[in-house]
């Protein structure tokens, strides 16, 4: 119920701001800016709401509006390794580094990306999953080994549910108001996430807006994880003592002699 009320409030705010518009701009808000991991956490969902502002002076467009919402997770250095055959066995041999790669990436749009933007624009603007790991330097993209590793990385993360592309992930509630649910799986790492919302018409980006949210451990989970890192001696001793205590308890409870 609280969530519904919150969504209604956001929509009311968006509707109110419509009147004050001067030119074609994008306004976006989120249902929440924080996902708390508790002991029963199994993933979460956020919703991005937005409105395309336009007034009398805004040029009439023949093409409908398109929205692409890209959510990116914490960036880390990723190592991608490839198994190769050495004699009779398969072992990890070659590896490629992908510095500053997002561990989570989801691209939602109101229709397939190929219908919204041309492949060239998509590449230049880094729109879509396949362009996420591309460098701006076109020469590097021609390196087939890097491309193979990049494809492998994308495939693995897609399979783990950390990467996703949803061609109907954005819904227009009216011709100018839209919403896009963002699914955050339980395996998504903790950290800060950024969301970029881009308005397109006729394959041209017209306006963009960014916002963010964070995934944090809370309560017991947060205390345990930080204890493991900040007080490893205490954490280790507590774990060991607990293990010994449970072992002793079992021998007392089940003692038969």
């Amino acid at each position: 119920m609280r969530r519904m009320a919150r969504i209604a409030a956001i929509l009311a705010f968006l509707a109110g701001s419509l009147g004050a518009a001067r030119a074609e701009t994008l306004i976006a808000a989120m249902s929440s800016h924080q996902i708390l991991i508790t002991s029963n956490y199994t993933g979460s969902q956020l919703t991005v709401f937005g409105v395309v502002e336009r007034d009398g002076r805004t040029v009439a467009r023949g093409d409908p509006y398109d929205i692409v919402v890209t959510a990116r997770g914490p960036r880390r250095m990723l190592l991608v390794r490839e198994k190769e055959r050495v004699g009779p066995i398969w072992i990890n041999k070659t590896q490629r580094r992908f510095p500053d790669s997002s561990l989570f990436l989801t691209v939602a749009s109101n229709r397939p990306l190929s219908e919204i933007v041309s492949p060239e624009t998509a590449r230049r603007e880094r729109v879509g999953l396949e362009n996420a790991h591309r460098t701006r330097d076109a020469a590097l993209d021609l390196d087939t080994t890097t491309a193979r590793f990049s494809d492998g990385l994308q495939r693995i993360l897609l399979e783990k549910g950390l990467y996703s592309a949803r061609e109907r992930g954005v819904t227009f509630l009216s011709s100018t108001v839209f919403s896009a649910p963002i699914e955050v799986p339980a395996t998504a790492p903790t950290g800060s996430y950024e969301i970029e919302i881009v308005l397109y018409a006729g394959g041209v980006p017209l306006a963009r807006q960014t916002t963010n949210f964070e995934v944090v451990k809370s309560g017991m989970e947060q205390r345990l994880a930080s204890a493991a890192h900040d007080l490893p001696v205490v954490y280790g001793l507590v774990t060991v003592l607990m293990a010994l205590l449970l072992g002793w308890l079992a021998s007392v409870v089940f003692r038969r002699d």
Partner: protein
Amino acid sequence: MQIYLPIAELPISILTVLGLSGAVGFVSGLFGVGGGFLLTPLLIFLDIPPAVAVATVAAQVAGSSTTGVLTYWRRRALDLKLGTILVAGGILGTVLGVLFFNSMRRLGQLELVITLSYVTLFTIIGGLMLYDALRAMLRVRAGKPARLKRQAGTHPWWMGLPLRMRFPDSQLYCSVIPIATLAIVIGFIGAVLGVGGGFILVPALIYFFRIPTAIVVGTSLFQILVTMTGATLLHALTNQSVDIVLAILLLLGGVIGAQFGGRAARNLNVESFRLLLALLILSVGLRFAIEPFIPPGEPFSVVISEGTR
């Protein structure tokens, strides 16, 4: 019902973990082994990162061996002197093992090292145990005593090495060198694979040093208890990969399963028992043996670089 594991960073079904650790606990109670060698691969199969699985199982093995140590201690079937030497060597081996574990993880070959070690260890030990169990069974059939008695004045050469010591509880007079070497090797293997090493130590003490079986099990449990306690602490200190929530779940399932396993053991014939254990170890080894030889479905794997975390 799902619970979020704070260190492994994923939610897991409580019932699945309790069921698994209960089943492994049953097997461990039945055969008097730690059961880590079954639990670690099962946890990895459940998507728990190998580093977390190995480190957390160490805590579980420490807890479940406590129960056994207390039982044998009450029966006075525990050679503290022999145990202390095994522990000293075991701690040294554990330190070396944790260092090796961390360096292999950095090199990206941890998975291969774990797989290959399982293969070699399990096929060799499982094979030897199977051979021995079959031979003992045949002896029983033929109406001879199942085990050869220790004969006075006959000692294998390694027992005659320098630094000889007397172990009255184990009825042993033997050089410290081979005992310490064995302990170092087992501590090393335990830290790398997250196994207690009981399934190596028990047959080794029986066959190489001819110590009475009752003393061997109690003493080996004591050595496992101390080395796995050390391994848990070292893993917690060096790579922060011990998951306390997972450890609690594993312990709960493990200790309860072990009690039922221990009871079931009393109703089983000893020889068919050893045969079963040999087959179990051998089949785990063979399961791992196949893996590196089949072309992988997905040749690529992704890890997060340690430096940036």
